[in-house]
């Protein structure tokens, strides 16, 4: 389908230029202005580069300063604890559930599949009041476990479908051979299926991690000062009355740094995970 057509080349060029502007501008503005001094910000020359990059803006955003009262350090630690725990546990349980969904075809499995399918797209608003009540009653709301539990409840169905999609693509011969040798299903899963599915686990882990790190609604509702997540802290920096733009942009960069680095360096797994969730599930 390669073409040497000149009009086509022109169209592609125009589209490329437009896309480049539209997608570079926000991140360019974010990075350059996070490195400026406050007087530079007030000059409103947003496209200019900073005279002298102010790297201390990042320390100010991370540890707080006179102008910036929402240090991001604690929220970043909170989000890391929550996201990493949820990612590991959800990938583990999702693998088990996905294996079940991909290897049995009984009516019971079909019912479970439908329930999982609906759960994938469940709006959080429809469960948030009971979740708040449960975590408040059990006291979990005061520790990271409250959010960890909620995120797991919501993400295990997703992880199951994603992992199941990958398992469906694994040839059965390996498992059948192991079965002939007398291995149980559980042994087969942990000794045969899991080792060859590690790339799939990586994809699912990246998707879940990004989703949990970026989640805002539940974090906002179940917020307690000790477990405040990075998105909730970021949302509080909103509005120039509370924090100057340069520091706000520095805080934004700190907030997106982890998932963005994941995306840039592990993009392959990321895309595969997105496609698994989109096409076959």
């Amino acid at each position, binding site marked *: *389908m*390669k073409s040497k*057509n000149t009009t*086509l080349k022109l*169209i*592609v060029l125009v*589209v490329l230029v437009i*896309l480049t502007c539209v*997608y570079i*501008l*926000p991140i360019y*503005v974010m990075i350059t202005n996070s490195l400026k001094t406050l007087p530079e910000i007030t000059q409103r020359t*947003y496209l200019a580069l900073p005279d002298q990059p102010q790297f201390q803006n990042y320390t100010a955003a991370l540890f707080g300063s006179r102008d910036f009262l929402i240090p991001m350090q604690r929220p970043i630690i909170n989000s890391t604890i929550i996201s990493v725990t949820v990612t590991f546990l959800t990938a583990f*349980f999702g693998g*088990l*559930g996905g294996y*079940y969904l991909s290897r049995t075809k009984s009516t019971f499995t*079909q019912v*479970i*599949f439908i329930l999982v*399918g*609906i*759960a994938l*797209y*469940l*709006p*959080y*608003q*429809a*469960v*948030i*009041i*009971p*979740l708040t009540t449960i975590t408040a009653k059990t006291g979990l709301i005061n520790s990271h476990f409250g959010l960890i539990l909620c995120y797991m*409840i919501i993400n*295990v169905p997703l992880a199951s479908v994603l992992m199941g999609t990958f398992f469906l693509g694994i040839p059965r011969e390996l498992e059948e051979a192991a079965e002939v040798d007398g291995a149980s299903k*559980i042994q087969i*899963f942990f000794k045969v299926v899991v080792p060859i599915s590690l790339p799939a686990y990586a994809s699912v882990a990246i998707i879940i991690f*990004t989703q949990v*790190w*970026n989640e*805002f*609604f539940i974090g906002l*509702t179940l917020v307690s000062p000790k477990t405040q997540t990075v*998105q909730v802290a*970021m*949302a509080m920096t*909103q509005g120039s009355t509370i924090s100057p733009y340069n520091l706000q942009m520095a805080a*934004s960069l700190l*907030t*997106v740094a982890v998932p*963005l680095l994941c*995306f*840039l360096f592990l*993009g392959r797994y*990321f895309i595969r995970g*997105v*496609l698994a969730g*989109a*096409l076959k599930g």
Partner: protein
Amino acid sequence: MSAIKSHQLRKIWAKFSEFMVFTLPLLVFLLILYGTLVWNFYVSMANWVNINADYTFTGLKWYQFLFGQSRFWVDVQNNLKWLILGVLPTAMAAIFLAYLLELAPFPGVEAYVRTLILYPVAMSFVVTGTIWSWMYQPEKGVFNTILGSLGIQSPFAFTNNPSTATYWLIVIFIWQYLGFSVIIVQSSFRTTELQEMIEAAIVDGASKLRILFSVIIPNIRAGILVLVSLLLISSLKVFDIVWIVTRTGPGIATDVLATNMIVTTYDQRLASAGAAIGVIIFLIAFILVIPYTLYAFRKWFE
């Protein structure tokens, strides 16, 4: 005799342990999830109007309360705008772009564009919203400053104009989801059957546009169904963008059901009414994903 029995026992034990390991964890999580859903449904028919839970049954009182509020209908209108304008332009632009990338006359274009438009997938709406709200500011914003330096007195108040604010919010959504949509469309292009049909059409001398409309689009219906369903759900669930950029304002001009739910539950302390909004959002989402769920079901168990 006992040998047969112990063999049977071992078989039952194997089945049981498989159930405990593979099925039970998923079942437990589903049970909690659907339990909270039913619980929330009951709250919506109770009389919880303060900090303390009150489970006195009141029937559909809170649904009637919502339907009688003009705010609820503003939300419905705005959600409709989101559902239509968040989905159609994104899907069409994604198909167009994916096709352009297939035709791409320069090497390296595809890898470049993919990274360029896909990076927002890794960013949260909180951050995207923060950046865009700064770009949109009517007085000191990036867009108006740029337009001003080009000598254009900007006619745009962006999100400060109540009648167009929602549209500017939807632009952010499209910006964020375009890359994601393109890779979904691209992967549905890449089937051998479709590639063969395109080759055949080229041999027949069909124009590029004709190939797009009469060969490609009719044959990627499944991909389009998936894409449209995902976009519909994402734009229905939209909360973060509105909350961060306009906080439902000016006034309640950009309010949607999801933001109203939080305001009703936590600011006005009408938990039952908030639960009712939650139920309504769930029902809409449920209806929207039916075609997709059926498609996925057939594909999974075929």
